Structure formats: C-alpha cells, structure tokens
C-alpha cells in the first residue's frame, strides 16, 4: 500500500524550499545557458504535472495506474486532431482534451474499479496499450504511425499584443510553467482538503472507510478522473511543444518515467514528487551516454533507491519524523 501521510514533514524547511524553488523556476529562462536547457526544464514541468496526476490516483487513492500515460496520449491526440482537423484554437483544444479524458476515465473507471487493485494495474496498462493500438491502426482518423506533424505553438495574447510566444523556448517555458503551476496548485488545494483525506482513507482501508460513510467507489472514481484530467491536460499541451504527435506518445517509457518519479519521490508526498520530476528529467539528459548504458544506469538508480529508501524520499523523511516522535515519548 502506498505510503500516504497527509502532513508532510518539516514544514519550515518546506516553506523555504518552496519559495527558493519558485524563484528558480520563474527566472530560469533568464539565466539558462541555452534553449536546450530551457527545453529540458519545460519537459520537467510536464513530467511534474503528469506525475502529480499519478500521485493523486496512486499515492493518495492507492490505485497504481498505468492509464496515466494513456490519458496523456489521449489528451495529446485529441488536442492535435481538434487543432489540425477542426480548426480549434490551441487553448480550446486543450480544454476539450481534458474533458474527453475525464469522460473516458469515468466510463473506464466504472469497469476497471470493480476488480482488485492488482488487477487494476494490469487493466490500466492494457488501457494504455489499447489506445496505442488504436492510434496506430485507426489510420483514417489518426494517420497511424505517421503521426500528425506540423502542430502550431500556443500563444498568450492580450488584445493584439503577444505576451508569450510558444514558438520560442522561453515563451513556451513560461506558458508551461504558468499552466503547470495552476494545475498543481489546484491539486494541492484539493488534496489537503478533506476530500484528499478521504482518498487516503479509502486507500488505507476501504471497508473501514465505507463503515464511516465514505464511498470507496466514488472516491476512487473521482481520483481516477482527476488524474485523467491532469494527465490529459499535460499531454494536450505537450504535443504543441513537440509539434507532432504519433503513437509513440503512448510509449511505456513515459509510464515508467512517471512511476519512477512518484516512487522515488514517495507516493503520497506531494512536494517530493514534484522535486523528483526535475531530478529525473535532468538525469537522462546529463547521462547522454550510449543509449543502452544510459538505460542501465537509470535502472540501477531505480533498484538502489527502492532497495534503500523504499518509501521514497518523502516517506523516508516522514519515517524519520515518526521515529523521533517515539524517542521523545
């Protein structure tokens, strides 16, 4: 079961870290040495948002879901198609993509939540693989493996003036940062309310929660839908960064990445997961060795982390706090 604690350890430290992080993030393009670095930071923001979605459904509600990559890809495809085939503006397309993901998750959740949690893992994995298959085979809609190239960049305008232009690396970065911060903040607000507490309760003991009037099914379903919304929005904006979408957007690599971020950060530990998004996006870039050697190193990092701090960084610190409590008893 996921380590879920609702009060994060070290509040003062957290506040300091948060403000430092916010300043660094806000000014990054100003001192970033190259567009490439800015690009990586942008990617990290996307992973942070998508992983937060996974953290909601897994870390808090306790449902390990591989569907996150499915929603990420679904959002990407929906927004790309709406923009290219139906002339939607990027922003409306992104909004619609989020809505489609929520509806899909509600329908899918009705079916998938009936099974045990372990089976849920596999069902969600199949969901993502199935979507990928659809993207590949339904060529008349999705152009199959050829993908949909030539997507425009989003812009933020005020009247006629372009405030932020997604065509430039820094412009896109700020757009992503703004949207990401919005989604993450909203999620944080929700999780620390009693709704978030109910997610955790259902996670820890479904039957106990039900005996206390908390509907396990409704909460699991809404956590699943929330994660779908977050994942879909992230994917929908992400395609405009790529400029192209193809079935590779459903790659298991993204799923692994999100999972690793959440696990190493500590499932159910909000801020550490965000932090890890940046670490783990930067890591493969720093390690641009031979691809297979990079992957080996990546795998080893994973194994070592899980061996020594199985609850993730957040869990480890919370554990330390608990031990200290005992000792001061």
């Amino acid at each position, binding site marked *: 079961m996921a380590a*879920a604690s609702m009060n994060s350890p070290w509040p003062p430290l957290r506040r300091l870290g948060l403000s430092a992080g916010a300043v660094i993030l806000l000014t990054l393009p100003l001192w970033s040495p190259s567009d490439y670095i800015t690009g990586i930071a942008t990617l990290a923001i996307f992973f942070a948002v998508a992983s937060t979605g996974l953290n909601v459904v897994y870390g808090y509600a306790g449902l390990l879901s591989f569907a996150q990559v499915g929603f990420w890809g679904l959002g990407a495809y929906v927004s790309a198609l709406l923009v290219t085939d139906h002339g939607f503006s990027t922003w409306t397309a992104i909004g619609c993509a989020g809505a489609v993901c929520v509806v899909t998750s509600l329908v899918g959740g009705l079916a998938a939540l009936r099974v045990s949690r372990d089976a849920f893992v596999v069902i969600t994995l199949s969901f993502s693989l199935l979507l990928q298959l659809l993207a590949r085979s339904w060529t008349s809609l999705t152009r199959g493996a050829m993908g949909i190239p030539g997507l425009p960049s989003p812009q933020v305008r005020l009247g006629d003036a372009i405030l932020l232009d997604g065509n430039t690396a820094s412009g896109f970065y700020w757009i992503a940062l703004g949207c990401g911060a919005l989604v993450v903040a909203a999620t944080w607000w929700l999780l620390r309310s009693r*709704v978030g507490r109910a997610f955790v309760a259902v996670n*820890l003991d479904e039957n106990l929660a*039900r*005996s*206390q009037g*908390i509907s*396990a099914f409704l909460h699991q379903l809404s956590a699943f839908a929330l994660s779908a919304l977050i994942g879909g929005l992230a994917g929908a904006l992400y395609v405009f960064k790529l400029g192209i979408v193809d079935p590779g957007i459903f790659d298991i690599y993204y799923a692994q990445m999100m999972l690793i971020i959440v696990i190493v950060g500590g499932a159910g530990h909000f801020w550490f997961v965000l932090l890890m998004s940046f670490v783990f996006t930067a890591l493969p870039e720093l390690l641009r060795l031979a691809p297979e050697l990079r992957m080996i190193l990546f795998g080893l990092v994973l194994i070592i982390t899980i061996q020594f701090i199985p609850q993730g960084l957040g869990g480890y610190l919370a554990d330390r706090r608990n031990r200290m*409590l005992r000792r001061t008893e």
Partner: protein
Amino acid sequence: MPSQQPLLSVEGLSKSFSGIRAVDDLNFVVERGEILGLIGPNGSGKSTSIDCITGFARADQGSVLLDGKRLTGARAEQIAQAGLSRTFQNVRVYDRLTLMENVLIARQAYDGVRWWQALAGTQACRGAERRASERGRELIHLVGLSTMSAFPAAFLSYGQKKLLALAMALMSNPKIVILDEPLAGVNPTVIRRIAGLIQSLNGDGQTFIIVEHNVQFIMEHCSRVVVMEQGRKLAEGPPSLIKEDERVLHAYLGKADAVAMELAFHGQ
C-alpha cells in the same frame, strides 16, 4: 419522548453460506436510547447479522428498518450515513495515519459539509473541522490515548487499537452505535472507564448495540439482551431474566461456568 416505531427493527433476517445458515430468521428491535446486548456462542451469527444490517453482507431475506426507513439493499456507506456506525470484530484502523487523523476521517462524512464547500474552504467547513478536532481530542482523551495522538496508529497495541476504533465509532454522532466486541483485549481497568463512557453517552440519549463475550459488562450495562444460537434468536429480555434462563445457561454460559464466575468475583 418515545415515538411509536422503534429506532431500528430487524425482521426475518436470513443469511446462509453454501448451506450453512449463519443467520436464520432473526427478529429484534432496538428502542431509542437503549443499550442492546447481543450475545451468543462462537459462530452463532452475531457478526454476520451486523454485517447484514450495516450493508457489508447482503442478506438473503428479511429487512432492516431504521426509523421506519428500509435499509435493505443500500450500500454500506449509505447505511453509515443514515446513522448506523459500527466497529469490526477484527480491529480496523488507518495504520499509517495519526490517531488524530483517524478520528477526523471518522466524522467527515456526517457533518453536512459538501465536497465543494470543503474545496472552497468555506466558513462552514472550517467550523466543522474545528468542532471535529475538539470532539476528536476529547474522545481520544476519554479512551486514554491522548499521549499518543500524534503517533501513527500502526504504533498501537491490539487493545489500544480497539479503543481507537471505539473513539472513531463515536465521532459521528450516529443514531445507533454498533460495537462488535469492543472490549476484547482491553484491560479491565480501562473497561471500567469505557463502561462509564458508554453509560454517560447513553444518558445523553445515545443508542447502542453491543456484541460482547464479557458477560459481566453485558449484565451490568445493557438494558436488554438478545441471545443468539446457530443463527436464531434463542432468548430476549432484560439481563436479570437472561441470567436465569436455562437455555442460555446451557448454550452460552454453562451452568458450571456461571458458578465459577460468580466465585471468581466473590472469591477473594
């Protein structure tokens, strides 16, 4: 003060598992403000009846009425929200959460705060949270766990978990509190305290159904006792009568045991 219909009535409740009749045509009522004891030998169907009443098992037959409203077929969480709060025989708490978080969760579905209010952090929600913490702190104190309220529940011993579960069941101001062996594994001194707590809540009008094998407790504190055997109701009545009932003595206490027990209490 007493209204016409009983607070809870169980009619013709039956439940069998592949041939075994765990509960067999069970009928009883619970009046407002009483403490009903439910006793019977091991495997006589007490826990199964409770599961059926609270929606954790689906009864084959029969109906359950709370305040005249049918509960049969409703889901467990709906029944809980309708005002039936229960504990489990095999003790359940949220292991990784602190005691305080445990009790807060136990209340949140009942205070009328809707989720959008909770999200918006309205006055109503904050007020409810404040009242919940106060009540939680008080109950944790009453069951004697206040020194541990910041610990995760995983740190509790078996008996302490039972006490926490009791506190959680009392958090929601339910119409009826159903306790499945709340005192098993609890220290006798603490039992006296808990008995006092239950009595005083009862004095304020709280209704209880208590399943217990602690006969002394049942006899002292229940207003009425239902005795089950092999899924059926064997006897029903005030403790003084039950204690004398031959069939109960035979099926549950055993003549010799009753004597031994009396001796134990006299014998020092």
